[in-house]
Structures are given as C-alpha cells and as structure tokens.
C-alpha cells in the first residue's frame, strides 16, 4: 500500500504501535527527576509500569514509530522496504498530543520514539528531534523519553536527541558482523557501534563535568562485589590516558569493533577524530530546519541521563548463548550500557536467509539469557563462569544460577551466619535484597531458617546450599545428582510453560498412541 494521506489518528496509532511492538525495551528506569511547577511529569529511577499487555509484557512507555516507511530492507523486519504493509507517519504534533494526554491520564510513563528510515537517516532523525524539541519545549513535558538513534544519522542530530531524551538506544540486532551481512544489507556493525561509542563518551564527559563518576551507577550491592563485571573498568574520555587495547579484551574474538580511532575520520568527514558529541556546534538554521534554540550547546539538560541500551535478536542467526552473553558483558564493560535486551525471534517474513516461518519462538532461551543478564548486573557473575566454549548453551531445565551452583558444590553449603555478602548472593534462592538483610541482621543475632524465610529467602531452592549455625534444614546429601533431580522436578512445570507460552497446544492423552496399544 502506498502513502495513504487521510488516515485517522486512531488508524495511524494502530499501524505505528503495531510496527513498534517488536522493540522490547519498554523500561522507564535509570533516572530520578523531580517534577517542576508549570511542567508535566517526573521520573523514578526504578521505572514504573502502567499496564501489561496480553503477552505478559509491561507497558510503560507510549512505544511507537514515527513512521514505518523504511528505505532499508532488513530481512527479519516487518517494516522492510520490500514488504507490502500499510504505511503511515505521525506529525510531530500528533506524537506530542498523544504523549501529553496519555500521560495526564496516567496511562504511560513517557514516550518511546523509534522510526523506520524515511528518505534517509538524516531526514528521519531530524523529524525525531523536531518532535522531541516540541514536546520538551512548547508542551513542557518533563517525563521520560527513550529515543532511538537512527544509524547513519549525522552526529549533531544524534547529539540534539541525546540532550532532549533520557535514554538513547541503537539496536545491535545481530551480535556478529557475519549475521548482519546476511540479514541487514543496509547496515553494518560499525554504523551501530560508532554512535554507541560516541554516546558513551559524551555521557561520561557530562557526568564528570557535574562531579559524578564517569561510569553509570550500578546496583547498590555491587560495591561489595570485588569481581563483578563492573569493577575496575574505565571509560575513555578526551584527555584521559590512551586506551590500552581498542575495544577492550576479547573484542576481536567477538568480531566486535567500532574501528577504534582509525577509520573514523573518513566516515565523518570534516569532523574531528573521535569527537564527543558535545564538542560539536549544533547545525545552523536551515541545514536541518531545526529551531535555533537547539543550536545552543547546553540545553540545560543532562546528556542521556538514563544511559544507553540496545537489543539483540535471539534465534535468527546461529550464535550460541555463550557468544551472546560474552557480547552482552562486553557491551556493559566497554560501552557502559545500562541495559542489553534480548528479543526472541518471531518469524514474520519468508526468506531463504531466515529460519523457516514455523520456527517456534525461542522463549525459554530468551528467558535464560535474561536470567544470566541479571546475574551479570546484580550478582557479580561473569559470562565465563556461567558458560564456556565447551558448554556454550544454557541448561534447559535449570536456571543459570542453580546450574552454576551445582557445578561448584565444593563451595557449598555456605554458613549464612559467617559467609561474606558476595558468597551469600551466589546461593540459589537468595537475591540482593535478602542477602543485604542477612548481613545486616546477623550483626545483632544468630539467624536460623525461620528468620531467613521472613527475610524473603526462597528456602525451597536455598536449603540445599546453606547451613544455619552448622546445620542444614533437612538431612540432604550435598550431592550433584540428587540436588539436580530435586531442583529440576521443582522447575519442570514452569519451564514447560515458558517454552510453550503460545498456549492451547495441550493434547489429549491417547491410550493408543501414547501407550503403544494397537487395535
């Protein structure tokens, strides 16, 4: 269908929300901002969900595309240029009105604005900036904004977007260069990693300028974790020492590089090498048709205060979980991303380069990756502890934490009244909150299992791995086979349900087929 001019707002919303739904990031977290008189909105660092759609995913932001017109032809995407779908585009004012009115009714926490590549990346990014500028300026919106950086857009437009939004993201989509070559003919790794690198540097510089640490804050407990992926990192800013190794250790092995210092000058002609965003002057009036106010370097707003995120598609290309998790860790360490999201591949298009259309959605795999992602960010685990070249994929029936514990039974059982925070946190069934409660409470008295239960420890999981004052809860052998069987039996139902979320595929048991009775 070609450009339809007279679509109603409702029809547009239908088309452009439907087109945006495969983007998974719907979080409104990462920044605490108080409300202001005369403005609308505030922001809570923990993020606030406002509803849950019937696929069980949270709805926090008004997640829409500015337009689903797209010049690119990424094979997996519903909006690819060669697909025959209804196309529409909002006007900046329509996006603003929707955001403001939804926000006042407490339907949403803010705006998530992405877009197909309309005409060219610069034109698209310009429309996005125009919208955000209107929303922050004229509409006095002070709530959360998550904006997509369109790969290939000029740096100054990306910079402008960064000052107006709270979070910026560029989707990596596929973790390997090879996968991208096959599935995204118009994009390559460098196009994505370069803006990501520049955004990371600009964030770091802005944070230093206002007296914060260059790196984003991580979970409260992580300062007690000496070996977490976040300890001992550095991010390069202008004026800091030369980076030791471009891309950090292991980058080359992952095939990920944003080309470091070399090569950049040729891409952004006329611009200084590795210039961070804030060094640039905003474009003059008329170049992109942006309002003059946007040219001012300091818009009295911090630059991307909630950090960057990205997402990867799971199951469209043959990467292993190990590779994905290593990539994730690398993105956290080297680009200081706030979040990495995973999106189970949903077959939408038929193409020789894609898995067949009846491929089941790898929901359990996605679930395991998220579990592991949490272990990296909150529990002090590293990718290499959870998986390896020899064991490149997650256990189907055990979550990554239990799996790790069972392979390291020599460390268990742990005495809760003495073990350090980092070790208690590694016990299955104990989370950062309950671990912190344990170390605080035990200073004033001795803990037993009844107390742990009150503190929120999941004893049905934890009791295999802990002692209180030298005693285990039941007489259980600390023996791998036994505990594995117990834990798997407990999780079986839940795992089955995650793997078969599509529902309705229950089958009536048949005497003839299932028990081999033939008439």
């Amino acid at each position, binding site marked *: 269908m070609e450009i339809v001019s007279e679509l109603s*707002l*409702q029809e547009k*919303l*239908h088309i452009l*929300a*439907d087109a*945006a*739904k*495969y983007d998974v990031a719907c979080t409104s977290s990462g920044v605490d901002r*108080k*409300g*202001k*008189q*005369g*403005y*609308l*909105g*505030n922001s809570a660092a923990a993020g*606030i*969900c*406002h*509803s*849950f*759609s*019937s*696929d*069980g*995913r949270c*709805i926090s932001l*008004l*997640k*829409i595309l500015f337009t689903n017109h797209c010049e690119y032809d990424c094979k997996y995407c519903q909006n690819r240029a060669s697909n025959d779908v209804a196309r529409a585009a909002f006007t900046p004012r329509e996006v603003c009105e*929707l955001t403001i*009115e*939804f926000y*006042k*009714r*407490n*339907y949403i926490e803010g705006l998530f604005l992405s877009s197909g590549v309309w005409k060219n990346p610069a034109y698209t990014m310009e429309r996005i900036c125009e919208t955000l500028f209107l929303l922050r300026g004229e509409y006095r919106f002070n*709530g959360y904004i998550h904006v997509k950086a369109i790969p290939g857009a000029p740096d100054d437009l990306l910079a402008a977007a960064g000052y107006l939004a709270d979070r910026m993201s560029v989707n990596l989509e596929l973790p390997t260069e090879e996968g991208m070559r096959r599935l995204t003919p118009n994009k390559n790794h460098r196009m994505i990693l370069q803006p990501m690198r520049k955004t990371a540097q600009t964030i770091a510089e802005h944070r230093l300028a206002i007296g914060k640490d260059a790196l984003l804050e991580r979970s409260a407990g992580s300062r007690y974790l000496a070996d977490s992926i976040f300890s001992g990192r550095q991010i390069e800013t202008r004026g800091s020492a030369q980076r030791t190794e471009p891309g950090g250790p292991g980058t080359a092995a992952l095939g990920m590089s944003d080309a470091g210092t070399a090569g950049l000058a040729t891409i952004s002609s006329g611009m200084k090498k590795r210039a961070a965003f804030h060094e640039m002057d905003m474009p003059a009036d008329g170049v992109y048709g942006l309002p003059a106010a946007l040219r001012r370097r300091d818009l009295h707003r911090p630059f991307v205060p909630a950090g960057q995120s990205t997402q990867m598609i799971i199951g469209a290309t043959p990467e292993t979980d190990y590779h994905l998790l290593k990539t994730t860790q690398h993105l956290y360490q080297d680009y200081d991303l706030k979040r990495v999201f995973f999106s*189970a591949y*949903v077959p939408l298009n038929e193409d020789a380069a894609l898995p067949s259309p009846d491929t089941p*959605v790898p*929901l359990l795999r996605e679930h395991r990756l998220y579990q592991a992602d949490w272990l990296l960010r909150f529990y002090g685990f590293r990718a290499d502890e959870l998986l390896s070249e020899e064991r490149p994929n997650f256990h189907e029936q055990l979550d990554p934490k239990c799996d790790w514990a069972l392979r390291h039974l020599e460390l268990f059982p742990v005495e809760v009244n003495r073990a350090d925070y980092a070790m208690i946190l590694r016990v299955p069934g104990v989370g950062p909150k309950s671990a912190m*409660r344990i170390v*605080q*409470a035990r*200073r*004033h*008295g*001795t*803990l*037993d299992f009844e*107390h742990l239960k*009150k*503190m929120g420890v999941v004893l049905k999981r934890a009791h295999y791995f802990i002692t209180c004052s030298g005693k285990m809860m039941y007489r259980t052998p600390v023996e791998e086979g036994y505990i594995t069987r117990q834990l798997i039996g407990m999780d079986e139902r839940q795992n089955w*349900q995650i793997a078969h*979320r*599509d*529902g309705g595929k229950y089958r009536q048991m048949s005497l003839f087929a299932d028990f081999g009775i033939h008439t």
Partner: protein
Amino acid sequence: MTVFTCKESFEAMMTCIYEAWHSKLGHENIRLQLEPVEQEELFCDYVSVQADAGKARKVTDAICRKISGEAYRQVFLAAMSFQEERLDAVYRFLVLGFSVGRRLTDMLFRPEVAWILELSRKSANEASYFREFTRFSLAGSVYVAHIEPKCNVTAISAAHFADRMPSEYWILIDDNRMIAAVHPKDRPFYMTELSREEFAALQRTEERQDGYTELWREFFRSITIDARKNEKCQRGHMPLWYRRHAVEFQ
C-alpha cells in the same frame, strides 16, 4: 487487661500509643486495638482514645529521634496496611525500638520487627501498584481517578502524583474509605473525607470517556505480540482486582 482503642487515622493511632505508654500499666497488661470493637471481651477495660495532634507529634518525633527515620517510615506504612492487629504490632515494635535504638530495623530475627517489615512491605507494594494502575479521566477541567486499595495508600499515591502533575487540577478518590486527595493547580494537595452527596456526584466521572480513552485502548491492543500471548503471565503482573478501574480492560 486494659485495651486502648482508637479510630483508623494515623494521628489517632499515634495518640493511642502515647496514652498506652503513659498509662504505666506495664506493656504486658495492655493491648491496643482499632475501632470499631466488634465484641468486647470479659475482664477487659476499654479506653477509647481521641486523636490529639500534639501527642501524636511527640510520638512521631520520638521515633525519628530515638530510633530512626527508617523505623518511622515502616511504622507509617504498617499503620496504613489493612491488617486488623496492626496497631498492636506497631506498639510492640516501638517497645523494642525504644530500648534498642537505631539497630531496631536490622533485627529481623525478632518477630516484632519481621512483622512490621512484612506489613510495611504490603503497604509499600500496594502504593506502588496504584502509582501504576490508577487511571484519571477528564471531568470538565479536573482529572479524577477512583481507586479501591486494600491498604490506605491514597495519601502515599497522591504525593507521587503531586510531584508529577503540579500544575493540574486533580482528585484521587478512595471509593471504599470515601476519602479523597484533592490537588488544586500549583498548590499542595490535601486529604478530605467525602460526604455522601459529593461522593455520588464524583462517582459518575468514570462514565465519561473521551477520544483519548479509545486511542489508549487501540494502543493497548496493537502492542501485543500474538505469537507470545500469555495471559497467565499478564495476570501474575496485573491481578484482576487491580484492573477494575483500568480503562483498557473495560
């Protein structure tokens, strides 16, 4: 056994704690209970305590000064929960607190402390639910929302909305307790009890819907990925009773 009773307001509860403490009857000889008292027990004296701002203030100041701000936060939240015995639970918590001081909230191996933590978590969780699932509708130039929380979280939620929408007129109504947080434009919000007539008039605001309600429903439908449909997961995150006033489910 002497039983001190009071109304459900926070001020009354704090006054009740003040009177109970100063009765000097011995902690084991008294009990605190919320009104209405369904059935009086034999061999018990019942003393009804009226709210007194000065006395309540003394108690809250003492909690902050002699125990900690965190303890006060937990006491307030626990007092807003819907557990019948919450007043006595708070009293026992404070009896321990005034003897141990700052360490109180860390002493989770004491049943008094664990109990208050549990109650305060209940209230805090519910307050955050209503931050999420409250829906305002436009009635004239005022945004009105109805909620039916189990815990008394209207004031806590209203503080959140006051920061968020400082320059709008809005009213947040607890349909069950018939109380409301009223927020005039650019001014602080206040809590008020609604008369029957006021309540009846405000009751009808939910029937009004404008174009944005329908647009929101459209968005809600369009954002679902059918290949991942999972209503059980949805119910886990958003239990049915929270959906009563959420327009996208109507």
